[in-house]
């Protein structure tokens, strides 16, 4: 016990020395010297494709090496914050709208207006919605990377077994409900749908389809108790509580909806287009799964969101980092993102490559790109995570029947207003 402190300290000192040595070699930003950029991302399904984009960049710029580190989503932001606080933020980072406000408002990201002025890229080329997510006080802080939409992933085989025609994407809430009922067979333990407390892939979509509102950056006020929002939440929860077309909330807490779809226990789930690579890589899902557009409520809607690439404001190699960011922003790199099936690029009009990549596996995969036309941006505020965590907790109570829709919505609205007022 006594020695542990000593050994720990010696190890720390030794490690410190080693790190010190390796850093001193790459401290300059001279373009003729070899430079290694660090690049952070979280999605292992995208990593393979991103490596190809990096390889292309390294071929064109032999003196720059890009070291990509893929950290799982659950640890990505904890790690990123620790690294940033300690002054070791990676040179180029993948950003998400949940966290971007904090990084932008604390000056951790490099504003990109100068690069745009130089003509390195033009923000008009990218999805306006996504670009807006990464704008703070009228300055852009990140290059939109991709756009995402939500659709219904369904099990063709279960549809066939139940004798139900496959959806063509033109369905309404009522038709969806009826389909889910026909697919449900409690005796076999098969359910038509999975009602979850996930926001982006779950209840947000139903709220938007009903014309409801969630919260808004510009207003400092939540609309979670808007009657249309409450109505949508009620319908969504009733799928589980009244129609009983979903496994109960407790089952879904232990086993996520994707596993239930993959094991043939649930016939339909709502999930993002970013699942395509994983679905295509799994031989069961590749064979049995297809996609349809989300059902229409009062209107057609899906949540859209988008990731972005940003540059640390404290990078030791600003010139090289700019070069890499410029390449990531280019039409060429976005075309590669699309063709390699990494994601639907945020660069306007390049979605076809992504569709072609998955068309052979999922016949209706176009539904995701079509969704961009009627997509509504994921709600975003100065503290998205706090608002969303509260909403998830209350919706969780609602779908397990422990809370009414009105009461849950009121609690969320009150909590979000407090959070926004304190910013």
């Amino acid at each position, binding site marked *: 016990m*006594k020695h542990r*402190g*000593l050994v*720990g*300290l*010696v190890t*720390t000192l030794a490690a410190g020395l080693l790190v010190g040595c390796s850093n001193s070699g790459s401290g300059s930003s001279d373009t003729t010297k070899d430079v290694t950029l660090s690049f952070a991302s979280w999605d292992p399904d995208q990593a393979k494709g991103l490596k190809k984009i990096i390889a292309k960049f390294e071929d064109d710029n032999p003196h720059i090496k890009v070291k990509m580190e893929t950290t799982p989503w659950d640890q990505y932001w*904890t790690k990123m*914050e620790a690294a*940033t*606080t300690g002054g070791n933020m990676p040179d180029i980072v993948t950003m998400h709208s949940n966290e971007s406000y*904090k*990084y932008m*408002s*604390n000056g*951790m990201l490099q504003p990109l207006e100068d690069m745009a002025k130089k003509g390195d890229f033009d923000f008009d080329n990218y999805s306006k919605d996504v670009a807006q997510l990464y704008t703070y006080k009228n300055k852009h802080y990140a290059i939109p990377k991709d756009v995402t939409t939500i659709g219904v992933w369904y099990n063709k085989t279960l549809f066939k077994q139940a004798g139900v025609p496959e959806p063509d994407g033109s369905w309404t809430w009522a038709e969806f409900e009826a389909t889910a009922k026909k697919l449900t067979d409690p005796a076999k333990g098969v359910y038509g749908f999975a009602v979850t*407390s996930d926001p982006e892939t779950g209840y947000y979509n139903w709220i938007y389809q009903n014309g409801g509102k969630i919260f808004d950056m510009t207003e400092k006020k939540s609309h979670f108790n808007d009657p249309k929002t409450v109505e949508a939440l009620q319908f969504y929860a009733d799928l589980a509580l009244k129609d009983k077309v979903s496994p109960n*909330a*407790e*089952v879904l*807490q*232990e*086993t996520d909806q994707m596993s239930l779809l993959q094991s043939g226990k649930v016939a339909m789930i709502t999930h993002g287009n970013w699942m395509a690579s994983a679905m295509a890589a799994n031989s069961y899902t590749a064979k049995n799964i297809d996609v349809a557009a989300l059902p229409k409520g009062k209107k057609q809607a899906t949540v859209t969101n988008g990731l972005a690439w940003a540059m640390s404001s404290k990078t030791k190699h600003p010139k090289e980092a700019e070069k890499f960011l410029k390449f990531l922003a280019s039409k060429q790199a976005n075309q590669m993102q699309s063709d390699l099936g990494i994601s639907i690029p945020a660069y306007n009009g390049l979605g076809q490559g992504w569709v072609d990549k998955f068309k052979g596996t999922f016949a209706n995969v176009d539904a995701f790109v079509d969704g961009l036309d009627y997509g509504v941006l994921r709600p975003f505020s100065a*503290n998205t*995570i*706090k608002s969303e*965590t509260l909403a*998830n*907790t209350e919706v*969780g*109570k609602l779908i*397990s029947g*422990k809370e009414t829709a009105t009461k849950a919505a009121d609690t969320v609205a009150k909590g979000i207003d407090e959070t926004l007022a304190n910013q």
Partner: protein
Amino acid sequence: MEKIRRTKYKKDQVFWGYLFMLPTVAGLIILNIKPAIDTIIMSFSRSTGFGNMTFAGWANYQKLFADKEVWQSLLNTILYSVVSVPLIVVFSMLAAVLMNQKIKGLTLYRTLYILPVVAAPTAVAMIWKWLFNSQFGLINQLLAKVGIGPVNWLADPNTAIYTVIIVGVWSAIGYNMILLIAGLQEIPADYYESAELDGAGPVRQFFTITLPLVSPTLFFVVVTTIINAFQVFDSIFMMIKSSTDAMYKTQSLAYLFYKYSFILNDKGYGSAIVVVLLVVILIITAIQLKLQKKWVHY
């Protein structure tokens, strides 16, 4: 006395003494004491991210005392400790006494008991999570064979905390058993021999010889087990889904600290929670140090 000691140690010896202490002291200050002080300072601030803070006075503590979630977590933590600590102490003692006998395959048994200590806690929690799964888990399959209907081990708000306790007890026995075996082996065998001559049975021997003589070790085990129980985090984090009712009724103060500091990015409030936890542990440990005179025989 003082004067003699002063002259006994020469100046350069004192220098070397301090030099040898330096690594440990520096480690303690850098890794333990400074962060602790920083945390207390942080609990009086509102954080805006990346270590930037503004002074907030007592705001975090005012919010904390009115926060139902904090009280529920304190209650969960106390429930966890009250149930798990006696179980851990009794089972560790039992295991230690059994492992201290001369039986066949002793090394094998000891290895089996120590395995949970060697395995990484997160990996252990993952495997228990599979075992406890209400649909596909092995435990429910076995229970179904004897006619006990599916138990919602991880998602039922009233059950989940006991599931976490089971895992906590299981993983703590091995380590405490080792400590207690070491304590048991210090007891001279002659005591037992003379007790046997005087006609004391094994039960009498245990309560009049073993227990009093192992009490210093047992005291250490009790104190550290209680502290560990109050700091329970990893099994809850790994096994229970966040933002659910089950989590609300299971989360410990340590988990709540993690939630506020690292998920919700409210480091000031998170620090205030952990300061409360520190005060609770301090009080309990102080009480135990007072009580030890009553039952610990040095």
